[in-house]
């Protein structure tokens, strides 16, 4: 455990400078990865005929330059925190959940269904709407877990296939059985959910809603479950070494199903909050690829909740600042996707970053997978 080593070395090196360096050490590589990705992004912007400094300043202005910009940044960060937690949670259990996008879509769909078809007082309706989304996402996530536990079908492929199944199912339902029957509606979308099913904004005049503090609370909860509960211990043990876990008497198959279900529930929660607090309905294509960005967020955050939150905030900044950047410099917002992919590249290939900046030491390796066999 990193804490132990920190304490040990601190007795030998009591200087505050060293203490600070030790404290910052886990953040060095991710921070440098972000900087390097932005530098490469700058080259891309120059090649595209833009001014990188102006572009990045525009992004900063668009994400933090005004109270409204901050509100939008936190708004973007909310689904990122939850989907990032979803992917990170699965990683802790040794599972790669690429299915967050599908789980999110079904969570949103179910939340919308509960939101517009039931009519209840707000005290019950809001939590029910959000929980229904989480349950739907969890059930969808449990399927690949079950497949893996029972048949060994690898979750990387089954979650991707389930994404497409979910997407087709959602398309079918939104265009048919669940389509908003309002006269004149030609869009594939559900009716608006009841007022009683909506999460309200935190401050009037801003779009930022209570979903954001909920996401932070969920992050704390996930951290607690992983670190302090038996279930979390089992999940991490199975993730680290399934054979050892089996030898120690843990039910590996059951743990895999539970990990995937909880991971799916987090993604479903993200979708439900988007519906309940922001869009107030499920509309086809509302997700901006949250489930895929979540993979980069989870890895940037070193698959731990305490890392996922700042990583999600960073991605939220990029997304909320991108329109302002495009408005000021005509650089298409697509460049953000490239920078995010580059961040993932440099985080994954930390050896590259370490060599580039002449860093000593070997970072803790994130071992995610052991091929197709396990």
């Amino acid at each position, binding site marked *: 455990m990193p804490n132990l080593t920190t304490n040990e070395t601190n007795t030998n090196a009591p200087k505050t400078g060293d203490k600070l360096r030790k404290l910052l050490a886990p953040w060095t590589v991710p921070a440098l990865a972000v900087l390097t990705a932005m530098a490469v992004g700058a080259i891309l912007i120059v090649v*595209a005929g833009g001014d990188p400094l102006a572009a990045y300043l525009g992004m900063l202005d668009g994400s933090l330059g005004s109270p409204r910009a901050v509100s939008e940044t936190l708004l973007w960060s909310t689904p990122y925190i939850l989907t990032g937690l979803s992917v990170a949670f699965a990683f802790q259990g040794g599972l790669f959940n690429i299915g967050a996008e599908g789980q999110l879509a079904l969570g949103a769909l179910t939340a919308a269904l509960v939101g517009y078809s039931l009519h209840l007082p707000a005290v019950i309706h809001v939590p029910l709407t959000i929980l229904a989304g989480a349950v739907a996402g969890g059930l969808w996530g449990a399927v690949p877990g079950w497949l893996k536990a029972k*048949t060994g079908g690898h979750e990387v492929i089954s979650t991707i*296939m389930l994404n497409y*199944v979910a997407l087709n199912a959602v398309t079918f339902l939104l265009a048919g059985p669940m389509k908003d029957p309002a006269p004149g509606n030609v869009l594939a979308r559900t009716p608006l959910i009841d007022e009683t099913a909506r999460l309200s904004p935190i401050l009037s005049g801003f779009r930022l809603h209570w979903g954001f503090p909920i996401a932070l609370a969920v992050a704390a909860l996930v951290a607690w479950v992983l670190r302090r509960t038996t279930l979390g211990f089992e999940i991490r043990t199975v993730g680290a070494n399934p054979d050892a876990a089996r030898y120690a008497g843990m039910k590996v198959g059951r743990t895999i199903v539970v990990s995937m279900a909880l991971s799916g529930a987090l993604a479903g929660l993200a979708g439900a909050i988007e519906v309940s607090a922001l869009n107030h309905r499920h509309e086809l294509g509302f997700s901006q690829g949250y489930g895929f960005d979540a993979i980069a967020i989870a890895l940037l955050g070193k698959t731990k909740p305490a890392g996922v939150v700042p990583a999600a905030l960073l991605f939220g900044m990029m997304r909320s600042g991108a329109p302002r950047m495009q408005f000021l410099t005509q650089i298409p917002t697509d460049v953000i996707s490239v*920078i995010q992919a580059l961040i993932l590249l440099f985080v994954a290939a930390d050896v590259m970053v370490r060599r580039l900046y002449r860093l000593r030491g070997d970072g803790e390796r*994130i*071992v995610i997978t052991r*091929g197709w066999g396990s």
Partner: protein
Amino acid sequence: MDYRRYGFIAAIVITLIAIVTNIGAAQVPPTAIVSSMIGTTIAVATPLTLGALCGVFCERAGVVNIGIEGMMLTAAFTGWFGALYITSVLHASPMLGLLVGVLIAIASGALVGLLHAALTVSFAVDQIIAGTVVNLLAAGLTGFLNRQLFFGQGSAFGGQIPRAAGVLPRVRVPLLADIPLVGSVFDQQPIALSALVLVALAHFVLFYTRWGLRTRSVGEHPRAAAAAGIDVLRVRYVNIVIGGAIAGLGGAYFTLESVPSFEPLMTNGRGFIALAAMIFGNWKPVGALSAALVFGAAQAFQINLQLFRESIPPKFNFLQQSSVVGMIPYLLTLLILTGIIGKTTPPAADGVAYDPERRT
């Protein structure tokens, strides 16, 4: 064991073809439908076969490659851009443009393969993460370049959308294409035909040549291979780059053979279905082809069913919804992956980075 697998595949393909033939029989002669279904199946299976072959080469050498999707997407874009540039800016003939486009696609696929090799072999990045990096990078870059090169102010075409060079023409293999019913297998566009040839070639290379033996030994037991004097890292590099080139050809299918246009994210998960085909095919070229045919048949089913949607019996009205039929290939993939038709065994060292300086 393999026979059971092939029997299962034949059953699915025949069932799908039979359903469409039944539904469309009132409008078109059954033999014509069967022939057209077989032709469409082969065509749709092309990128899946090539993607799966890419996977076979990488994983036989012990490197998991989930970046096939990104390799194909990159190649689809570069090939498309190259063909357009050559025909509309350099004013070459469309045929030349298409052929050079294919070559560019193959080269860019190999280049992405090199990136995957560098990440997995040299930097020992978790191989599934490396593949994800490749996929996200390809999606981001092609989306960005697509907008910048075609629609941006300083675009290569002066902000105008250039005229497409069309798609590669059909090639009829003499004699074989005249066989009744199944002749349509040999009446295909060039990339589809080359996919069939490449399967045979890959089978020969992997199982009957020295290079193939070395590749397989590196995938099964790199340390033993190294002890026998094989340069493990080099074998891995070369195989991943070869795989990338093959995936690049598969990418060219999308923009130069299937439709004359590029859409962001147009590979649409085909790289992952290819991966599933590779697993189902037990890491063998012929097995991969046969599995690709199942997905090809499922897609051909969807396409052809749309043609005859008026004749679908009322009881099966839901089949008129393209989003319902659209699930079939993915559900089939899931079904196949659950291993109901026997377990598959990956190469023993698949997914494990090899460090020559460590003794384990």
